[in-house]
């Protein structure tokens, strides 16, 4: 018998759950002040998320998938993405888009049932929120293929959850990324649950990162609640992709502190004790403790930030509520580049339900 292959999976963590450094920090974190923008972004994400949940409870938006607990992943990814990289999200990645410059009321529009929530004028190449599980992964391979074909210094970042790693789309895409050495990074947000099904029931693999081994690509695991680890490992993976070094799979360990969506009740399938234990590991307080211990954050700064965030949330809600209603004709407007003649009567029929807007459509 001969061993023909071996593998090991590296795990990276810089801050423990109490915000204490474990080992030497990467150079960008030598000055704690460099992490203040990440902290500010994470606090804003959490506040917007809490508002969105409240708006669902009062009927102002529809079913909503909370981002509670994954703020370090979104902030870290947002920090290391380049302007012309392309993000291919699942439906739980709204935090990243905030850092891509997308106005956060678009997230409310999306969960409010309005396609204009997927219009990202500030980040026009990024893909829209993706609800079918894992189907965005092959898109990322196609995007990365286009980048490589044109010889561009860009990368595609595809995000999915732990459940998505069970799907063929996931395997097919990482396999293709390896075969062509595509400039693609896959970030698996392992929040331990696919609705009610725990991580251990998705796969017997010790780590989800090691699925990259079979695809012949770089793969590693990080503490997804440690923004320094996210920035460090993901930043290097993206840079490797852009410079022709091939794809990487990063598994970020985190925990979904919320229900799956506002339509879910997680207390049916997990204990209060488990949830309480996970709250001790959450990313926002961890980063704040570290910043404070390193003299980069103070109580007055925190109070000022909270006021700022409250105002930002209020503006976001206003922008959402002030968005004009969708015309029914909008169903047809972007169906094809030019609506085929055979559907003209259907457009006319639906537009007749809104006679005052009918004329506007024909004018526009």
């Amino acid at each position, binding site marked *: 018998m001969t061993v023909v292959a071996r593998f090991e999976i590296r795990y990276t963590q810089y801050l423990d759950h109490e915000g204490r450094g474990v080992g030497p920090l990467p150079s960008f974190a030598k000055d704690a002040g460099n992490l203040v923008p990440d902290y500010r972004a994470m606090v804003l994400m959490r506040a917007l998320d809490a508002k969105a949940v409240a708006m669902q409870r009062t009927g102002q938006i529809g079913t909503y998938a909370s981002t509670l607990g994954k703020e370090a992943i979104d902030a870290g990814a947002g920090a290391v993405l380049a302007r012309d990289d*392309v993000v*291919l999200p699942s439906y739980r990645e709204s935090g990243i888009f905030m850092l891509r410059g997308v106005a956060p009321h678009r997230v409310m529009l999306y969960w409010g049932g309005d*396609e*204009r929530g*997927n*219009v*990202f*004028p500030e980040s*026009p*190449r990024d*893909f*829209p929120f993706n609800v*079918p599980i894992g*189907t965005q*992964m*092959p*898109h*990322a*391979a*196609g*995007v*990365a*293929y*286009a*980048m*490589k*074909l044109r010889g561009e210094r860009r990368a*595609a970042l595809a995000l999915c959850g732990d459940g998505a790693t069970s799907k*063929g*789309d996931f395997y*097919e*895409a990482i*396999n*293709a990324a390896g*075969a*062509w050495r595509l400039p693609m990074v896959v970030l698996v947000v392992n929040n331990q649950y696919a609705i009610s099904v725990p991580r251990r029931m998705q796969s017997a693999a010790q780590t989800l990162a090691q699925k990259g081994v079979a695809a012949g690509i770089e793969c590693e695991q990080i503490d997804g609640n440690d923004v320094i680890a996210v920035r460090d490992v993901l930043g290097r993976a993206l840079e490797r992709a852009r410079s022709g070094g091939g794809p990487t799979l990063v598994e970020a360990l985190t925990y979904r502190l919320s229900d799956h969506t506002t339509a879910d009740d997680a207390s049916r399938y997990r204990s209060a004790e488990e949830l309480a234990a996970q709250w001790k590991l959450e990313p926002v307080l961890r980063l704040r403790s570290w910043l404070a211990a390193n003299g980069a954050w103070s109580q007055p700064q925190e109070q000022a930030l909270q006021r700022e965030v409250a105002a930002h949330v209020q503006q976001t809600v206003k922008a959402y509520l002030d968005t004009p209603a969708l015309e029914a004709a*909008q*169903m047809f*407007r*972007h*169906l*094809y*580049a030019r609506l*085929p*003649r*055979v*559907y003209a009567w259907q457009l006319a029929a639906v537009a007749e339900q809104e006679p005052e807007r009918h004329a506007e459509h024909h004018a526009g």
Partner: protein
Amino acid sequence: MPSITLVEGINLALARAMADDPRVVVLGEDVGVNGGVFRATAGLQQRFGAARVADTPLAEGLIAGMAVGMAAEGLRPVAEIQFAGFAYATIDQMLNHAGRLRHRTQGRLTCPMVLRTPCGAGIRAPEHHSESPEAMFAHIPGIRVVYPSSPARAYGLLLAAIADPDPVVFLEPSRLYRRFKEEVEDEGVPLPLDQAFVLREGTDVTLVAWGAMVQEALEAAEELAAEGLFAEVIDVATLKPLDIDTILASVRKTGRCVVVSEASRTCSFASEVSANVSELALLALLAPVERVTAWDTVTPMARLEQKYMPDARRIVAAARKVLQYQ
């Protein structure tokens, strides 16, 4: 003018599109060195390189999904699925993404891709190589479904499909790949999409068909003509969106209509044509619209496929039936 087969028409259109537009890339299983199992992509990799004519890993969902990503990122991918029976794996991508990317981003991202696949029975191929999935694709909003029936239409419609700003499922009748030749000038001139072609004019009955069934309909028309019955033959060519106007104009003239589908009967595309004609031309009809289709069975393996597919004989019988209707 060179006389070429249908599969040569496909090859010629691909080469022309690749030469004219650097954004056009071909991807699929065995499309590169091997030139495709039917030779549709023969010589393209040698001419345009392995990056633009890419052999993919063996995964149909990936091929369609990658094409969506490529198209959104500015390429013009032409993806090949080796046989129609394997194209069902692409429906998730075509339905959830290709057909709705434009709408769900309100025009921000678009999906100008072509998904080609050989289609239909009659070539004594193994199991799962002979399916007719056109109705399944035609049910998907936001895409086009194109199904040529001759070398010239294959060439011109494929050029149009590649240039189209929206996703196109391009079905190729494998039975006609080498059945006959037609003169095709390689001048890069596309044929119009969304338009049916009247291939033979007639006054007594309208025969509507697409893909390989067009040849059966033309044969049937020939037989009927020998009896002094003049059939008008329409090649639908673009199934979605359907050029119902051309069909209605013909039915208003003839008063009788037979629709032919190689796919099984229930929810076939023939049902859609029949429903439209019945709704929109009822007062012009002198007889109920007749559908000639495959049976509502599984597509059988080679020994029974000739008994499964409609043929000229069944079309003639259906035409006689509607012509005898009082």
